[in-house]
């Protein structure tokens, strides 16, 4: 089955861990993840600047590793990211900020990517809504 994943919660929220484990289990079960779309506070999951305590789960690092290894399509909503201070190098330059904090394997793009993924997938699975 083809899944599109939408995540709305920040990395320290249980929903982010659940989403991560769901994606890992789906892939292990032979399913396809057509896209990860991070929206609202979930954009922080793609930040390269999250520092977790050594004995705690590093959810952003796990996402990064998973997307790299499985070559997933990891999209972060650009509007949601900018208003929360998540910028790649290009956006940091555009808005004259001192540094970016989002890089490969993540792409900044628009909400059209969420709709496209939802249309392509058999199921849209959302994590971290109210």
């Amino acid at each position, binding site marked *: 089955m083809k899944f599109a994943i*939408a995540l*709305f919660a920040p990395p320290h929220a249980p929903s982010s861990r659940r989403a991560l484990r769901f994606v890992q289990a789906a892939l292990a079960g032979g399913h396809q993840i057509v896209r990860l779309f991070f*929206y*609202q506070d979930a954009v922080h999951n793609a930040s390269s600047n999250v520092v977790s305590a050594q004995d705690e789960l590093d959810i952003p690092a796990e996402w990064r590793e998973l997307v790299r290894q499985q070559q997933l399509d990891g999209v972060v909503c650009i*509007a*949601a990211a900018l*208003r929360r201070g998540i910028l790649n190098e290009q956006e940091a330059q555009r808005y004259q900020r001192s540094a970016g904090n989002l890089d490969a394997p993540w792409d900044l793009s*628009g*909400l*059209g990517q*969420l*709709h496209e993924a*939802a*249309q392509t997938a058999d*199921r*849209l699975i*959302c994590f971290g*809504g*109210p």
Partner: protein
Amino acid sequence: MSKSLLIINRQSPWSGPSAREALDIALAGGAFDLPLGMLFLDDGVFQLAPAQQPSALQQKDLGANLQALPLFGVESLYASARSLQERGLEQQTLTLAAEVLEDAALIALIDRYDQVITL
């Protein structure tokens, strides 16, 4: 055929970016001509309350953007009768022409859509 999407809008308008971000999903989908609906549920019905003064909070007028929904092809707008009643809101005062549905009709509504996003 395109899959239909129901956006369930549950947050009050001035409690954070959720209301605007739910609306943005609808407007983006409308631009792609997708079959979309929006349901205002729980505190989300406050987005339809009359006489709001966002300028007092230095906020942009969300209501003006909600008015744009039909222009973007999002004409299936619903509000929960129970949520309105619990918050003392009257259907005739709402700023958007939303169909007011009882709980049983909400179940049928959600069932009609292929996909649901709740914000």
